[in-house]
């Protein structure tokens, strides 16, 4: 079986801790996780797949191969117009290169597509963390009215009309005919191979002192020190996976694109917000839509900071097209609270304040941010199998 990667068996962790209690005296947040290298991804017991001796998923596993074809399979969408690969494209860093993601035709999207790269490591998926595992995220997106607009019964019957899929599902899952639950298992297994635990940053953290440039090393010190990014961007994924309102400016398309406005209202309505909020909200309320707790208004899950070179634009609404813009945003102390009038309280985090970074420091910070990206990962586009006529009896 082919190894996906060449990873030393016993990664060495080098912890770096915040030297910043002095910088933010009186601010909160006690203990921070260390930055560390990325290990093998978690694999759920109910969806096993082949792994190498270090636990990294292998790509020549029939379940992964099936999942890869399904990832590109536009017949999973209602009108066969879109597949996972259209919004999470390997040509655009496993996202889609836009501020607001591609939506189902005739509809608009209102958020940036998170990248699939390394999504396997996240506890929860989506900017509002509403999905608890890859399998469910894929199902949610594929059946959403503004994304895949697919229907599982239709998907199942289409797959059953395609002999190549029938054979693959039987081989992988042992069923006579493809069953809808297994679609998501296969796609998730494929996604668990779209990982990158061997970036320059990872190699440095495992002991290769030459893996990072001097600028990037200086940037890492800023990250955990003066720039204080480590307050939220911690651990091997550089995210605490918690929710913060940092005051990202609104995307102007909310005010100018009718399809985006339709989706904006639709989302609030679907998630059951109170009428007053439905009528008044003009900004994305983030994880509030999941919890309906006003304290959560405007908060989004901290983004993981890997593969950044390939995934502009950044933030939940793609507000920033370059890392320079991102750093400038934090350097000024983040943005303003846009939800206070709706929440009845201030939800913007108090963890941000102006940083006073010099131009050179900004440059170094960006060099570090880029070091968590390895080589670009692309896959060979699979050939979709054809329909055939099925036998029937009279």
């Amino acid at each position, binding site marked *: 079986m082919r190894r996906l990667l060449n990873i030393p068996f016993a990664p060495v962790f080098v912890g770096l801790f915040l030297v910043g209690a002095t910088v933010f005296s009186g601010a909160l947040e006690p203990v921070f996780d260390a930055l560390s290298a990325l290990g093998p991804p978690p694999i759920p017991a109910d969806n096993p797949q082949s792994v190498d001796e270090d636990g990294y998923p292998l790509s020549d596993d029939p379940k992964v191969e099936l999942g890869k074809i399904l990832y590109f399979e536009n017949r999973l969408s209602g009108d066969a117009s879109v597949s996972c690969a259209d919004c999470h494209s390997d040509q655009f860093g496993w996202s889609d290169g*836009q501020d607001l993601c591609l939506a189902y035709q005739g509809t608009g999207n209102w958020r940036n597509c998170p990248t699939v790269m390394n999504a396997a490591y996240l506890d929860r998926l989506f900017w509002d963390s509403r999905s608890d595992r890859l399998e469910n995220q894929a199902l949610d997106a594929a059946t959403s009215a503004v994304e895949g607009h697919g229907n599982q019964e239709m998907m199942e019957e289409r797959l059953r009309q395609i002999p190549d899929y029938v054979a693959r599902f039987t081989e992988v899952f042992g069923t006579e005919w493809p069953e809808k639950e297994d679609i998501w298992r296969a796609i998730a297994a494929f996604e668990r191979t779209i990982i990158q635990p061997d970036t320059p940053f990872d190699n440095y953290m495992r002991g290769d002192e030459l893996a990072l440039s001097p600028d990037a090393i200086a940037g890492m010190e800023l990250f955990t020190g003066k720039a204080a990014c480590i307050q939220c961007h911690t651990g091997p994924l550089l995210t605490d996976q918690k929710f913060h309102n940092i005051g990202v400016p609104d995307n102007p398309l909310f005010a100018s694109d009718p399809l985006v406005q339709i989706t904006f209202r639709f989302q609030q309505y679907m998630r059951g917000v109170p009428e007053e909020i439905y009528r008044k909200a003009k900004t994305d309320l983030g994880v509030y839509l999941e919890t309906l707790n006003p304290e959560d208004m405007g908060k989004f899950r901290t983004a993981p900071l890997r593969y950044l070179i390939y995934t502009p634009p950044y933030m939940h609404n793609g507000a920033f*097209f370059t890392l320079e813009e991102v750093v400038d945003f934090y350097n000024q102390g983040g943005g303003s609270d846009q939800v206070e009038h709706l929440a009845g309280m201030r939800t913007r985090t108090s963890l941000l304040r102006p940083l006073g970074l010099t131009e050179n420091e900004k440059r170094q910070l960006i060099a570090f941010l880029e070091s968590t990206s390895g080589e670009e990962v692309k896959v060979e586009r699979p050939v979709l199998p054809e329909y055939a006529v099925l036998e029937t009896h009279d």
Partner: protein
Amino acid sequence: MTFRPSIFTIILACAASGPVLAQDYVVVDLENTSSIRGRVTLSGDAPAPLRLLITKDVEICGLGYRERTEVDVDERSGLRNVVVYIEEITEGKRWDSAPTGGFINQEICRFQPHIQVMRRAVDIDIINSDATLHNIHAYELLGRARRSLFNISQPEMGAVPQLMHPRSGNRVSLECDSHDFMQGWVFVADNPYSVIVDDSGNFELSQVPTGTYTVSVWHPKLGVQSREITISGPDGAETNFEFVID
């Protein structure tokens, strides 16, 4: 032979004070122009065409697979579908001597032409020639990112006007939100010195005034290359570009 500027260009040269923007191209009467000629080639093997299954509207788009050649070469490695252009030139020949398309046609589920040069900020027609819905979605390409330029749903045959004006940059990709196997390209030019290579990868930028310019070539899949070219006399300049696939 020396270049004798006309009185017109002298006036313009005096008038220009601030930074010269790409949009500030001016048509002038020209003497002593010549051509930049050359050929674009590929070194290495072009990837095999993509095989994209037609999963809807087969009676219009075709049965079976659409072969999409992303890197097209002739038998002498001439690279096709490349745009050759001068990056910044403030004055020169008329626009009508340069290709300036006026439409994008969706026919048999293809964008026709597949790649074309358009003048910035002109009105064009988006035409649906097929008896099915097409949903053209154009993007301006911004490095590794892109921005939606327009997104037009056309359930029926007919033409819809659209302004072709990316905010920044020249490179536009075309997709169809209904048929994800469709792809096309547009180069939005700021000056008339923008051409598409011929079937063998040859190009000629004609009527270039003497001077030094940055000449670039753009292949939608292989990227951009640029170099400085100097025109000093009536023989013009000859330059070739090579893209390499390992």
